[in-house]
């Protein structure tokens, strides 16, 4: 048999009707994640045609996007950003109740950002097809799942048929050879890759990440890397399952148990790309060369190492971006003043991300005038972090410790920056106005964001991390 890629194997398992010249393949979807923002119109479309949800048991709902990160007031009312935000949350509650869909509601200890809770529950597993009306569904690819974002019309298609019409994408392998330097992590790898191939470099492709540096990442790091695939324009990012994947999933609520578990593990470990399998495109990146990264423009490919200057000649698009960002060509990152720091989002809000930020902030204070908001990715992350006392580290440093949700990543729930402010953010998009009207966003890792909070300027986290390491040993 012809050698196959990880993508080929997962795709082949889910083809219900083969693709033809005049019609795309019918692809079966194992898990459909939904949230309050991109689902109401899909349920309405179903109602219009008198259709039911075909597989409520393969559908899982959570509240995250327009959900407050401040607790309810004394009257029990949640502090919604607007009546519309509240109506949206209520619409999802109603739709889930009407169709028998499991919803991790506002008081559920498992609620959180949709891409954080899927893996946490063990709902995300190797070899699955997973979709959600959210582009960062690529996150789940860290488990060797084929996972991608869809629009609301397609959310309706999946609700009604558990299937999607799909053309097979091309495949690209991004190999990170070599070993990462200390203080450099998955977020830096993602930004370095996007800077290399461009914000549209992955357009039309399913990416597989490979190489020693990828293998060495924790599952959480792998999720961060796959999460950012969409920022390179790719349909999805995938990493072949290995022992780490298996270990991470064992004992999770929805992971198989007993004999089914043994069988599942054997199957999962068979999903890696065969020797000699062909990709439509191959990219090689030397992981040893990567330094902590930050963005300086309004597209995620405008990224450079934090210990140097931003490029001196940004081109025409870069100049327009520089006008908005008020970062001069050739300026050093260390000269850029910071107003606000956001630590959170489906890219970097898991326990290891919070540990990384806390390692920098422990025993230190946030620079005067800088506001820091930390929003854990889920209730599970929040309680685990609190059990280790991380929240105390953040509070003592002068940061805010919030409830889980998308928060300032998309700034829909009232958490946002003010016009003109510069925000160092661990989220995934530095688009104009993404974090509030006129807000200037700089993307970076949790460690870089925390170090920047301490210095009030964009800072290299490595000295802080080294010191934390020394103290720990």
């Amino acid at each position, binding site marked *: 048999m012809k050698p196959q890629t990880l993508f080929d194997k997962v795709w082949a398992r889910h083809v219900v*009707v083969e693709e033809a010249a005049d019609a795309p393949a019918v692809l079966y979807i194992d898990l459909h994640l939904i949230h309050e923002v*991109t689902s109401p119109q899909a349920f309405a479309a179903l109602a219009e045609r008198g259709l039911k949800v075909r597989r409520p048991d393969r559908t899982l709902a959570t509240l995250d996007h327009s959900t407050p990160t401040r607790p309810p007031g004394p009257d029990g009312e949640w502090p919604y950003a607007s009546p519309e935000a509240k109506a949206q949350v209520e619409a999802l509650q109603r739709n889930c109740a009407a169709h028998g869909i499991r919803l991790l509601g506002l008081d559920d200890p498992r609620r959180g950002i949709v891409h954080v809770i899927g893996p946490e529950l063990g709902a995300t597993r190797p070899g699955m097809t997973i979709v959600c009306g959210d*582009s960062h569904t690529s996150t789940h690819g860290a488990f060797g799942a084929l996972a991608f974002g869809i*629009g609301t019309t397609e959310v309706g298609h999946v609700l009604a048929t558990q*299937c999607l019409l799909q053309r097979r994408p091309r495949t690209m392998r991004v190999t990170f050879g070599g070993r990462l330097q200390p203080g450099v992590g998955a977020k830096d790898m993602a930004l370095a890759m996007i800077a290399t191939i461009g914000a*549209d470099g992955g357009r039309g492709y399913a990416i597989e990440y490979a190489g020693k540096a990828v293998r060495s990442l924790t599952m959480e790091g792998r999720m961060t890397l796959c999460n950012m695939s969409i920022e390179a324009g790719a349909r999805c990012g995938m990493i072949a399952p290995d022992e780490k994947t298996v270990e991470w999933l064992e004992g999770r609520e929805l992971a198989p148990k007993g004999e089914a578990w043994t069988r599942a593990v054997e199957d999962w470990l068979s999903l890696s790309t065969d020797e000699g399998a062909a990709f439509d495109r191959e990219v090689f990146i030397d992981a040893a060369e990567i330094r902590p990264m930050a963005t300086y423009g309004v597209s995620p490919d405008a990224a450079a190492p934090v210990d140097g200057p931003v490029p001196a000649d940004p081109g025409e*698009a870069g100049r327009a971006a520089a006008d908005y960002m008020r970062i001069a060509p050739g300026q050093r990152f260390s000269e850029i003043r910071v107003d606000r720091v956001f630590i959170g989002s489906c890219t970097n809000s898991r326990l290891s991300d919070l540990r990384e930020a806390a390692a920098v902030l422990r025993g230190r204070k946030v620079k005067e005038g800088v506001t820091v908001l930390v929003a854990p990715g889920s209730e599970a992350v929040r309680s685990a972090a609190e059990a280790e006392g991380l929240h105390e580290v953040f509070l003592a440093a002068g940061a805010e410790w919030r409830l889980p949700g998308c928060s300032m990543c998309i*700034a829909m729930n009232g958490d946002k920056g003010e016009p003109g402010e510069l925000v160092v953010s661990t989220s995934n998009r530095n688009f104009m106005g993404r974090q509030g009207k006129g807000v200037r966003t700089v993307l970076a890792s949790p460690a870089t964001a925390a170090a920047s909070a301490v210095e009030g300027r964009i800072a290299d986290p490595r000295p802080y991390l080294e010191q934390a390491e020394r103290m720990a040993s």
Partner: protein
Amino acid sequence: MSFEPFTVLRSRTLVLPQANIDTDQIIPARFLTTTTRRGLGEVAFYDWRFDEEGRPRNSSVFHGVDARAHRILVAGANFGCGSSREHASWALVDFGFRAVVSSDIADIFKSNALKNGLLPVEVDEEMHAYLLAHPGAEVQIDLEAGVIGALGGGLSAPFEVEPFARRCLVEGVDPLGHLLNQIDAIEAYEKARA
């Protein structure tokens, strides 16, 4: 969703030459707290069209534009990148656009647009440069022939649309109906795997 079948579109272009126009620009997230598809044209490109106080920006290319006369949006490379929000397509259609032309258009946006009667047209660099350089040009898009051309002797170029999506647009085939017709195969697949 139903919309008028798409055959030949003739209109002036509105040009946004910037590359990487993301869906947060097309419709900022704060307008996503809606539970319907309607009325989003008013907030399309809101922060480009209106200033902090909500006053129209005189410097905006949208200023004074009659949307019905400009049904073709020509944009820089990598149009529609970022968030998967279909609200971006709803907003553009509601604003009055029927086609978006660029050298390349982001995958999810393209898929969403096609489902809402908004034709994504990807053209070669030469045609792209020509259209960017001629804002307001009178352009004809013939979907069945797969040709886009500037009227009055301007440049023209072929473009491709995924065949099934084209059938949906031209013949009004409904993709969900197509999927629902496959229910037997879906059931058989589920049985075989159970």
